[in-house]
């Protein structure tokens, strides 16, 4: 599906990126604790999170803060904002936490992808 369609179906605000994998052929694979609390169909008795995998095919990334961000292998990322720039581009702001005693670090990334796949675990 297109990114614009994905965002209508899944709200990433408040979710936690638990794994960031840049695969070959311009493919980004994210594992998320998706925040059920911020989904349109949230019902009170459901759990706060559910695990999903998102695959961005034909993907390009832009590190808008020019911090040299290429992903992470430790810690997690708490998504504090998302902004759909066009039907194939999504800006994601998240707070990367390494749990090493230092404060979280803001990361702002524009993800461009023409084909997105979401898998509910």
């Amino acid at each position, binding site marked *: 599906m297109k990114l614009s369609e994905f965002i209508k179906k899944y*709200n990433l*605000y*408040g*979710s*936690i990126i*638990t794994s960031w994998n840049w695969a070959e052929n311009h493919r980004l694979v994210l594992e998320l*604790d998706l*925040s059920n*609390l*911020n*989904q*349109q169909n*949230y019902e009170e008795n459901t759990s*706060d*999170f559910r695990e999903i995998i998102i695959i961005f095919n034909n993907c390009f990334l832009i590190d*808008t*803060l020019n911090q040299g961000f290429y992903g992470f292998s430790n810690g*997690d990322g*708490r998504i*504090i*904002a998302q*902004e759909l720039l066009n039907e194939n581009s999504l800006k994601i*702001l998240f707070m990367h*936490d390494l*749990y090493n005693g230092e*404060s979280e670090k*803001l990361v*702002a990334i524009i993800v461009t992808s023409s084909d997105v796949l979401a898998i509910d675990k």
Partner: protein
Amino acid sequence: MAAVGVAPPLIALGPAGWVALGVLGIVSVGVTAVSIYNASKEADETLSNEEPGCTENCPEKGEKDSDLTGEKPKDYPKNPDNLLDDGYEETTHPEAGKHGVRRFKNPKTGDEVEFHKGKTGASGWEGEDHWHRFNPNKSGKEDAMLDENGQPVRKGSNPSHLEPK
């Protein structure tokens, strides 16, 4: 003290002087004792035995002192600017600020909180003003935030969202 001043002449007078000196000494001790007793009684009447209390910016009855010492915000205010009056400093990243997310830290205690401005029309907490408070002793995502009672909770969980008052 008067007895000391007149002692040498009285001693020189012989036994009669010695008796007079003895009587004078007893009278002096009595007068001193009465003076000390009166001073002590006066102090009891004007000073309280209770420990010194708060004299400025005192908590109201039933309110914990810690609410005013900067350990945490007294309340999570509707207007985040009000937190600046509680001794917090703003550490907001400009990019986060553009999206309505502001961060504050108390330099005295190290306490850190984050304000999220609700977005009109958004679902769930994204549509509501709320705060998060961070656990300074976090070990991972399971205890990274604090609930309204200051207890560790999962990052982004429902109880980690603190409503402004």
